[in-house]
C-alpha cells in the first residue's frame, strides 16, 4: 500500500447522478469523477429500480467511455470506396447537416416514404417516432420486431399489458415463480434483486428452459424443454388445470370474456363473434361498446354482461330466443384444449407427462390454497365495492425465449390465458402492470389505413405504428398491398405492431414493395448480429443496379462506436455515450414505472462529449429544424427549440395540453405532476432528485387496474387514458376472429386478404390459442437437420457493443457451441474440437464445448460475441473474430421457397406479428477435417480504423482515474 487512505480520499472530487445505459435496464447510478475522469460508477441506493446495486456491465462503464473504438468525427465514405471497406474522410458537422438536409428535403417534397428511419435502440421512440411522423414517412420503427414483439403483442392483445417494461412478476408476494425460456435481459437488476429475496423468503422457483444458465442455475427445479415447443406445454398445463377445476372461476367470470356468448353457428356471417345487444355501454369509448351477452345461470337466460346480480355460465351450449346456437367463450377454450393432453405435449416438448401434470397441480393448488387477502378496499368498473384485494401467488416471467419463434404470438397468448385462468392478473403475488399500462385491448393508437396518409411536405396522417383491431385498421394500398417498406400492417404481417426492421434491407434491396432513397440507422448493427442472413445482407448493402447506382442509394448510420454497420455507411454520425448526454425515459415511450405507480427518469451529462460527438437527439432536433418540420419550428419557420434539453422542457403534445416527455415537476414552479405547464427548471429538479420521478398511487389504485374505477378516473384525469371503461381480458380474441372472418369472406369488414394469403390468415388468426410447429421447422428436413440451435445473452455483455470494453471482453472473448456430451460423443466430437454447424441456409465453423446443462436436441451459444475482423477496433487476430462466431449466418431472413405463398417470399417471422423467428433454425453438426484451419468460418476482410478513433494500447494499459493520462 503505497498511499495512505486520507491522501486517496482527498483527491476524490465530484459525484453526479444519472441513469445507466450499459443495457436497457435503466438503473440509477452515481458517477464519481476525479480530475474530470470517471473514477467509479456505482448503483444509486436512492433509485427505485436498482436500489444501489449495479451489474457487471454497469460497473464497466468506464471502459466504454474511454474505448478506443469511439467515433469522434462525422465521416463520409471516400469517393470510389466500396461500402463495407470502411474508408472514410472526416467532414464537419455543417457539411454533414447540409448533405442530409438537401437530400431529405428533396425526398420530403416528392415522396416522403423513400426515407426509411430505423433504430436499434427503443427507449427514445417518442422522439424518433415523432421525427419520422413529422417528416411524413411511414417507414419507421425501432428494433422490437426482431426482438420480442410477440411478447408485447401476445400479452397486450390478451390482458392489456405485458412483461418487458410494461409489467412483471410480483415476487415480493409470490409463492411460486415459473420462468419460461430465456428472459434474463429485460429488467435484469430488478429481477435479480427480486429472485434473491423471493428465494430467501422460501419461494419455489421453477425454470423451464432448454439450457440451464443464468437465473435457471438457482432454480429449485430445472425442466428442460425443446425450443419452440413452449406453446404445447402451456396448452397441456391449461388442459390439466381446466379439467381438474383448478381455475379461478370468480375471476374468469367477472374480469375476462370467459362468459361472453359466442355465435356457434358455422353458417352465420358473425360466426365466432360475441353476441351483442347493440347498446352502448362504452362510457364514452368509441372503440368498445361493452354490450356482449352472458347466459345468467341464476335466471337461466341471456343478459347483458355484468348485469347486477347475474353470474354467467362459463360452460354449456345454449340457444338464443331466435334459435341461434351460442357457447360461452370458456366452453370454446375447454373444447380446444381437450386435444392437448400432457401425453400429447410430452412427445413434442420432451417433458414427461407426469411432470406436466405435477406442474399444473403446483400452479393450481398454490393459486387456490395460498390466497392473499390484502385489506385494501376498491371499487370495480361496475360500481361494486370490494373490501379486499385478493392475490393468487403464482408468478410467471418470460421474454425472448417464447417470443423469438414464428409460433410465439399464439404461445404467448396461451401463457397470458394460463395466467388469467389462475386469477393472477394485476393482483398481489401474480403479474402486475406498470403505468401507462394497462391499456385498452388493443390499445387505441392505430396505423394509417391508406397511402393517402403520405403526402409531400406534410406530416404522416397517423402514427407509423399502432394496434390494429381488425382488417379495417391495416395499412394497405388500393390493391390490398403493403404501404410500409417492411410490410408491417399488411395482410402478410397484420399485427406487426413494432414494425419489422429485419425486413427493411432485403425489401429495399429488392424494391419490394418499392425502392427507397435514404436509409437512416441509429445504433443497430444491421451488417452483423442484428440481422438474419448476415452474409447476403452485407452484399445487399453494397449492391448496385444495372445503372451502377446502389440499390439502397444512401445510408446514414449514427453510432458511438466503429461497428460492423458503420463500415457500410455513406455518412457516419458520431453519437455520444450515455455519460455525455441528456436523455429521458418518458411516459410517452417506455418509462421505468414501478408496480406502485408511474415513474420516469433522465440522464444528465456527467462528462463533456468526446471530440465532435453529438447526442443523436440534438442531431434530430437540428435536422427537424432545418427541414422545417412543423413540430420543430414556429409559424414563421424560425427555430423553436434550442436543443434537446430545451425541447424536452417545452414540448407539449398539443399546445396547452400540459402533457410532455417528463411527468415530474411540471407546472411553472414544478408543483404539478403528470400534467402541467412546462417548467423551465425541470431538468434541475430531476438532477436534485436522483434523476428520477416516482409517483405512488393510493393503495386502492395499485391493483386490479384493468377494472378499477378509481384508478381509471385517476388515469383519465392525468390523461394516461382517455376513457375509463373496463379492460376485459380476452381469453377469446375477437380481434383475431375478425381477421379470420375476413379470410373466410365473412364479417363486417369489406377488406379481404388476397386469395393466396387467405388460408394463412384463416389458419393463424385463431381466436383461441393453438400449437403449431415453428414455420422454419416445418419446412426443414429434420432428419437431416435434427437439432435446434439457439442463443442466450451472457449477463456480462449486452448486444454487440461490449466487445470493445477492455474488462468485459476478458470475461467473454470468444464463444463456443455448447453441446450435450451424449450427442457429441455419438458424433465423434470431443470437447474443444472444431466443428461445423450447418443449417439449410449456411454453415459456420466453431469450437464445441461439452455441457450437461443443455437438452440433447439443442445446441446453443452466447449471442453477439463473435465479431468481424478489426471491427470495434479490436486487433485483426482478436479472439472475437478468429475463434468467435455468429449463429446469424445460419438463420435466413426469409422462409424457404416451400413457404412462399402465391409467389411471395415470406419473412422468417411470426405470421401474425412479423416477429423474427431467430430461435427456429434447425441444424446438424459434424467434426471439421483435421486439415482445416483452426479458426472460425466465415472470416471477413479487416477494415482500417476510422479517422478520429483513438490508437489502441496494444500490450497493456492500466487505468487510474484523475491522473490525466493512462499508463
Amino acid at each position, binding site marked *: 500500500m503505497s498511499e495512505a487512505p486520507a491522501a*486517496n480520499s482527498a483527491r476524490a472530487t465530484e459525484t453526479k447522478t444519472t441513469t445507466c445505459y450499459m443495457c436497457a435496464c435503466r438503473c440509477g447510478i452515481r458517477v464519481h469523477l476525479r480530475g474530470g475522469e470517471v473514477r467509479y460508477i456505482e448503483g444509486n441506493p436512492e433509485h427505485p429500480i436498482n436500489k444501489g446495486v449495479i451489474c457487471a456491465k454497469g460497473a464497466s462503464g468506464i471502459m466504454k467511455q474511454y474505448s478506443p473504438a469511439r467515433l469522434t468525427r462525422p465521416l463520409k465514405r471516400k469517393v470510389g470506396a466500396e461500402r463495407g471497406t470502411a474508408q472514410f474522410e472526416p467532414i464537419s458537422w455543417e457539411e454533414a447537416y447540409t448533405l442530409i438536409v438537401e437530400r431529405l428535403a428533396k425526398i420530403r417534397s416528392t415522396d416522403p416514404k423513400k426515407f426509411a428511419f430505423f433504430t436499434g435502440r427503443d427507449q427514445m421512440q417518442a422522439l424518433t417516432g415523432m421525427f419520422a411522423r413529422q417528416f411524413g414517412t411511414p417507414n419507421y420503427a425501432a428494433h422490437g420486431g426482431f426482438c420480442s414483439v410477440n411478447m408485447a403483442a401476445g400479452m397486450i392483445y390478451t390482458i392489456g399489458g405485458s412483461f418487458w417494461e410494461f409489467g412483471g412478476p410480483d415476487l415480493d408476494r409470490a409463492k411460486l415463480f415459473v420462468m419460461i425460456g430465456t428472459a434474463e435481459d429485460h429488467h435484469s437488476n430488478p429481477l*435479480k434483486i427480486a429472485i434473491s429475496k423471493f*428465494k430467501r423468503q422460501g419461494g419455489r422457483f421453477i425454470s423451464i428452459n432448454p439450457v440451464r*444458465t443464468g437465473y*435457471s442455475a438457482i432454480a429449485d427445479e430445472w425442466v*428442460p424443454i425443446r425450443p419452440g415447443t413452449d406453446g404445447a406445454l402451456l396448452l397441456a398445463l391449461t388442459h390439466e388445470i381446466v379439467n381438474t377445476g383448478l381455475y379461478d372461476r370468480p375471476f374468469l367470470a367477472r374480469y375476462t370474456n370467459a362468459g361472453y356468448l359466442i355465435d356457434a353457428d358455422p353458417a352465420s356471417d358473425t360466426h365466432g363473434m360475441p353476441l351483442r345487444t347493440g347498446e352502448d355501454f362504452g362510457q364514452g369509448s368509441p372503440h368498445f361498446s361493452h354490450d356482449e351477452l352472458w347466459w345468467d345461470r341464476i335466471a337461466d337466460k341471456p343478459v347483458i354482461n355484468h348485469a347486477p346480480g347475474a353470474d354467467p355460465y362459463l360452460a354449456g351450449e345454449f340457444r338464443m330466443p331466435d334459435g341461434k346456437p351460442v357457447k360461452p367463450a370458456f366452453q370454446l377454450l375447454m373444447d380446444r384444449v381437450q386435444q392437448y393432453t400432457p401425453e400429447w405435449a410430452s412427445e413434442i416438448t420432451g417433458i414427461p407427462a407426469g411432470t406436466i401434470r405435477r406442474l399444473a397441480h403446483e400452479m393450481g393448488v398454490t393459486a387456490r390454497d395460498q390466497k392473499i387477502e390484502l385489506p385494501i378496499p376498491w371499487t370495480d368498473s361496475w360500481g361494486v365495492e370490494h373490501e379486499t384485494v385478493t392475490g393468487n401467488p403464482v408468478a410467471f416471467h418470460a421474454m425472448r425465449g417464447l417470443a423469438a419463434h414464428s409460433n410465439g404470438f399464439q404461445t404467448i397468448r396461451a401463457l397470458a390465458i394460463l395466467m388469467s385462468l389462475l386469477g393472477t392478473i394485476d393482483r398481489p403475488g401474480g403479474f402486475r402492470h406498470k403505468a401507462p399500462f394497462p391499456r385498452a385491448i388493443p390499445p387505441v393508437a392505430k396505423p394509417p389505413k391508406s397511402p393517402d396518409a403520405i403526402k409531400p411536405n406534410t406530416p404522416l396522417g397517423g402514427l407509423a405504428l399502432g394496434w390494429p383491431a381488425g382488417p379495417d385498421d391495416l395499412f394497405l394500398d388500393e390493391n390490398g398491398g403493403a404501404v410500409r417498406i417492411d410490410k408491417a400492417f399488411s395482410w402478410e404481417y397484420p399485427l406487426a405492431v413494432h414494425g419489422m426492421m429485419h425486413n427493411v434491407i432485403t425489401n429495399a434491396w429488392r424494391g419490394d414493395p418499392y425502392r427507397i432513397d435514404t436509409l437512416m440507422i441509429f445504433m443497430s448493427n444491421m451488417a452483423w448480429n442484428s440481422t438474419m442472413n448476415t452474409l447476403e445482407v452485407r452484399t445487399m448493402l453494397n449492391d448496385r443496379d444495372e445503372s451502377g447506382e446502389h440499390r439502397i442509394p444512401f445510408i446514414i448510420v449514427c453510432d458511438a462506436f466503429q461497428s460492423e454497420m458503420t463500415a457500410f455507411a455513406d455518412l457516419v454520425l458520431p453519437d455520444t455515450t450515455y455519460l455525455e448526454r441528456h436523455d429521458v425515459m418518458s411516459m410517452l415511450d417506455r418509462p421505468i414505472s414501478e408496480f406502485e405507480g408511474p415513474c420516469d427518469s433522465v440522464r444528465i451529462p456527467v462528462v463533456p462529449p468526446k471530440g465532435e460527438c453529438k447526442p443523436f437527439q440534438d442531431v434530430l432536433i437540428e435536422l427537424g429544424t432545418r427541414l422545417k418540420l412543423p413540430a420543430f419550428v414556429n409559424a414563421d419557420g424560425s427555430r423553436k427549440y434550442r436543443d434537446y434539453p430545451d425541447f424536452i422542457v417545452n414540448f407539449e403534445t398539443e399546445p396547452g395540453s400540459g402533457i410532455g416527455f417528463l411527468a415530474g415537476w411540471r407546472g411553472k414552479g414544478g408543483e404539478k405532476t403528470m400534467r402541467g405547464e412546462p417548467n423551465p427548471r425541470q431538468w434541475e429538479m430531476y438532477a436534485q432528485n436522483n434523476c428520477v420521478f416516482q409517483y405512488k398511487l393510493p393503495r386502492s389504485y395499485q391493483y386490479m387496474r384493468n377494472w378499477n374505477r378509481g384508478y381509471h378516473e385517476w388515469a383519465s384525469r392525468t390523461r394516461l387514458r382517455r376513457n375509463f371503461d373496463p379492460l376485459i381480458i380476452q381469453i377469446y380474441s375477437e380481434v383475431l376472429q375478425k381477421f379470420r372472418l375476413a379470410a373466410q369472406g365473412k364479417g363486417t369488414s369489406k377488406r379481404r386478404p388476397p386469395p393466396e394469403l387467405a388460408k394463412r390468415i384463416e389458419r393463424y388468426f385463431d381466436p383461441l390459442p393453438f400449437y403449431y410447429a415453428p414455420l422454419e421447422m416445418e419446412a426443414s428436413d429434420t432428419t437431416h437437420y435434427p437439432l435446434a440451435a439457439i442463443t442466450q445473452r451472457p449477463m456480462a455483455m449486452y448486444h454487440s457493443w461490449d466487445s470493445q470494453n477492455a474488462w468485459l471482453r476478458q470475461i467473454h472473448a470468444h464463444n463456443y457451441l455448447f453441446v450435450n456430451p451424449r450427442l457429441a460423443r455419438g458424433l465423434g466430437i470431443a470437447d474443444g474440437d472444431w466443428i461445423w454447424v450447418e443449417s439449410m441456409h449456411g454453415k459456420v465453423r466453431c469450437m464445441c464445448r461439452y455441457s450437461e446443462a443443455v437438452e440433447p436436441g439443442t445446441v446453443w451459444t452466447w449471442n453477439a460475441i463473435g465479431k468481424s475482423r478489426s471491427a470495434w477496433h479490436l486487433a485483426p*487476430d482478436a479472439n472475437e473474430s478468429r475463434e468467435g462466431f455468429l449463429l446469424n449466418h445460419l438463420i435466413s431472413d426469409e422462409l424457404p421457397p416451400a413457404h412462399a405463398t402465391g409467389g411471395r417470399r415470406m419473412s422468417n417471422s411470426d405470421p401474425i406479428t412479423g416477429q423474427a423467428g431467430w430461435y427456429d433454425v434447425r441444424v446438424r453438426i459434424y467434426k471439421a477435417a483435421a486439415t482445416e484451419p483452426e479458426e472460425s468460418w466465415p472470416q471477413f476482410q479487416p477494415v482500417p480504423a476510422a479517422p478520429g478513433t483513438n490508437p489502441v494500447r496494444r500490450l*497493456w494499459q492500466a487505468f487510474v482515474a484523475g491522473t490525466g493520462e493512462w499508463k
Partner: protein
Amino acid sequence: MTQLALVIDLNVCVGCHACVTSCKEWNTSGLAGSLVDERPYDRDPTGTFFNRVQTFEVGEFPNTQTVHFPKSCLHCEDPPCVPVCPTGASFKRPEDGLVLVDYDKCIGCKYCAWACPYGVRELDEDRKVMGKCTLCVDRIDNEALPEAERKPACVLACPTNARLFGDIHDTESVVSRAIRENGGYQLMPEWGTQPANHYLPRRKTELRIHRDELDRADNPLKIDGLLPKPPVKDPSLDDVTSW
C-alpha cells in the same frame, strides 16, 4: 478479535459478474491499484482481477446443477502466504484480520502465490507487485464515506445480495448468523488455513401436492354443471337391496 470476511450465498448467486468488474473498477483507481490489463484489445486479453467467478456443472443431464462460484482472497486466519514472504510485505492486519500486501516492500517474487492453496493472488505484470483482494480496505477505513457504504465494492454491487460482509468472530453478526443457520462452509478446511470467507450451499424448496387437494368440494366445474349430480331416478342400491 475481529475477523472481517465475506460470506457468499451460492443459493442466490446467478453468476452475473457484477462483483468481478465492480472490484476492478474500484480498485484500479484506488489504494490497491492500478489493475493492469494486458493486450486489452488484442488476442488473448488478460489482466488483474482480485475477484473472479468460475462456472462449472455438476451432475449429468437432466440432473444438472450449474454452479457459479465467485472466488477472491479468503483472508485466512492462518494464511500460508504470510510466513513465506521474504520481505514482510504480506501481512495479516491485527485489528481486523485482513490479509494485505505492502507494495513498498513487495519484490514480486511470487512465493505467496505458490503458497496460497486457493490461487487468489494476482501478480501485477506492470508494476511487478503482488495484488489481491483487500476487502476494499480503502472503503472500510474511509470515514469520509457514509457508514452504510464502508463495505467492499463487490458487496454493494451484488444484485442478488449474495455477498454478505462482517465479522465472523462476532457471533451475532449477519455473517455469523448466516454461517450458523444456513450451513456455511469453508474451502478446503483440511489445509488448516482457516479461511475467513465462507460459502452457503444451494438450498432447495419443494412443494408436495396431496392427491386429495385436487378433489375438492368447491370445484368450480360443479357450478357450470360439468360434475353433475346423478339424476335421482338413476338406478341405485336402494332399488335392489333390503336387509
